[in-house]
């Protein structure tokens, strides 16, 4: 029997039982559709996160921290990940240290991570936020996506960059309209003179507190868009960014965190962290070992990337496993359909054998039949998975757009995914066809010809 004839036989038989063929292929279609959309979601997440990391310069940024005890986090089980421990714990991370780090070959820039709590007000509304002091060079870098207005030109320029999400919290619908308007920053400071004469009793009895508030106004120069992935990991996406110049005018607590005070040495309070920008990822090891020699701890996101990649593989596997459940159900559907088909065509199989069909011919016909179901179901499943993903993507983006998030493709469809899915569907259907095909081939023609 020729190959083309076996295919024709199989297709003729499928055409004859249209409804059942359609239902069985639909089962495969749904299974493959689920698998394709699951995997494309995993691939999409991976692509988005990887791109966000690459675009934000995070790979070439090293965070330098003082050694010693770690400050507690809100969740005591959640430590800062993978901080490389230093040799010494008494090194203070002050301006001298920042200057020394800047001089290490391979370092483009180093600037302290200075932030202070403030009440941020715009027109009638107010929000508590951390104001981040960011040098102009960093604010102007490609890692900061300023969508409206501009970044500040120098460290001395009087103005701030705010995030779109903050503006939305402050009731501003159109970010462009806020550019040029003034924003209020209220900070707290401690009157050290009054502190000396105070005791707890007098504080409670209603005397004024040594804690003073002062409000400053700055023009909004630009509004940046928070990327959908990476989010607040990136300090350059803080709610309010202010250049070092005007930041110095603001009366505030002389430390970012109260924990910094515990690291004080000889009366000097260091920064809680210094951001170090590298020219290239290749310098990471060398720069890091120099910084460790100076007695500081480091944290680089590049370390995390392998783990992130591993996590994505794991996620892909879980998503694929969920999709596999649907495939297994579809495969059982194929087996059922094919076994039913044998029972219905029992006599026909006998006739074919009586006129000279060999076991191999019968096997082939049934094998091709289940293969055709898989091929058609798999192809339709790819289309279904693609269409469903497109729809989900539209809906999710519609809701996220209302919250000010940019449009993101949450699904990725590499060509290999489609080809792989169709190939996989064919494979599963052929495997499902093995038992029915063998059973059909074993039909005894004498028994089959007696059968009505």
């Amino acid at each position: 029997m020729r190959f083309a004839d076996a295919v024709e036989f199989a297709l003729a038989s499928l055409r004859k039982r249209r409804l059942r063929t359609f239902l069985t292929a639909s089962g495969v279609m749904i299974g493959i559709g689920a698998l394709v959309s699951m995997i494309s979601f995993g691939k999409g997440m991976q692509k988005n996160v990887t791109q966000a990391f690459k675009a934000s310069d995070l790979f070439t940024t090293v965070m330098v921290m003082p050694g010693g005890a770690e400050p507690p986090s809100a969740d005591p089980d959640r430590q800062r990940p993978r901080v490389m421990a230093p040799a010494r714990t008494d090194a203070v991370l002050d301006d001298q240290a920042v200057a020394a780090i800047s001089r290490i070959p391979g370092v483009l820039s180093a600037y302290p991570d200075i932030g202070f709590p403030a009440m941020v007000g715009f027109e009638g509304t107010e929000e508590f936020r951390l104001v981040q002091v960011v040098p102009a060079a960093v604010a102007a870098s490609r890692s900061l996506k300023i969508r409206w207005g501009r970044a500040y030109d120098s460290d001395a320029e009087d103005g701030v960059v705010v995030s779109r999400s903050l503006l939305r919290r402050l009731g501003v619908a159109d970010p462009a309209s806020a550019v040029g308007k003034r924003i209020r920053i209220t900070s707290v400071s401690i009157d050290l003179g009054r502190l000396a004469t105070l005791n707890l009793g007098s504080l409670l009895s209603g005397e004024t507190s040594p804690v003073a508030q002062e409000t400053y106004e700055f023009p909004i120069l630009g509004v940046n868009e928070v990327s959908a992935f990476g989010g607040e990991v990136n300090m350059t996406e803080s709610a309010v960014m202010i250049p070092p110049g005007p930041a110095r005018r603001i009366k505030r607590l002389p430390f970012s965190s109260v924990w910094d005070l515990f690291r004080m040495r000889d009366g000097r309070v260091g920064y809680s962290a210094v951001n170090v920008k590298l020219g290239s990822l290749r310098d990471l090891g060398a720069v890091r070992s120099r910084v460790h020699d100076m007695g500081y701890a480091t944290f680089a996101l590049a370390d995390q990337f392998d783990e992130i990649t591993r996590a994505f593989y794991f996620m892909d596997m879980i998503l694929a496993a969920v999709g596999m459940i649907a495939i297994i159900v579809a495969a059982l559907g194929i087996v059922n359909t094919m076994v039913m088909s044998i029972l219905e065509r029992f006599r026909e199989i006998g006739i074919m054998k009586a006129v000279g069909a060999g076991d191999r011919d019968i096997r082939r016909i049934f094998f091709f039949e289940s293969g055709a179901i898989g091929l058609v179901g798999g192809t339709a499943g790819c289309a279904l998975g693609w269409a469903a993903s497109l729809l989900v993507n539209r809906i999710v983006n519609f809701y996220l757009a209302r919250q000010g998030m940019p449009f993101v493709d949450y699904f990725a469809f590499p060509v290999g995914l489609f080809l792989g899915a169709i190939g996989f569907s064919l494979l599963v259907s052929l495997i499902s066809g093995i038992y029915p095909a063998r059973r059909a081939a074993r039909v005894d023609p004498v028994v089959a010809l007696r059968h009505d």
Partner: protein
Amino acid sequence: MSPTAPLLVETRSLSKTYLVGDVRVPALADISLAVPEGSFLAVTGASGSGKSTLLNLLGGLDTPSSGTIEVGGTIVSAMDREALARYRRFGAGMIFQSFNLVAARTALENVELPLIFAGVDKTERKRRAAELLDKVGLAHRAAHRPAELSGGEQQRVAVARALANGPRLLLADEPTGNLDSRTSREIVGLLAGLNRERNLTVIMVSHEEGLVREFAQAIVRLADGRVAAAGGPA
């Protein structure tokens, strides 16, 4: 058939026993036949005498429990499944009481079936199938499905199909069992004509004494799975 014609079919001590549960039911016992090429042999006997079993064994649809079958110098009883399929395809054509046409296929497509399994290409097999239908007088019914054909027409299609790959042996299992007497005579006449014109060896199982006497050159009567009588038409 010339008196000195070589043997086409020879069986020696052929037996077939079916196992029904734990009980061995003998269907055929010790059948030894010699059928010269080009002869028309009728096999008669009461129902259950083993006629159909004998034909199934000769046609390669079933395998004997013991004994040998030799057709055209080849030991059919020693063949494996694939060789038996080839034998059914090329060596022996079969027709049945209930015609056994594939309902979903037209007359022409039914005749094409053995050619498909023989790997004949489409144009050639269409040509050959049409020619065979013409031979049995059904060229005008080629595009009809079995349900649209009369019993006699269906059996003619079956005959055309049995001859598709040019076998030397035609086995007919009660070919007139479902037909009226006039059509029965036409069908057996058709077989006899093929027997004469093509030197086709025909072995026909039949109840119909009249037809058997009229057309067969030799008759074997079976009783309880054994040869009860053998000879020429009485």
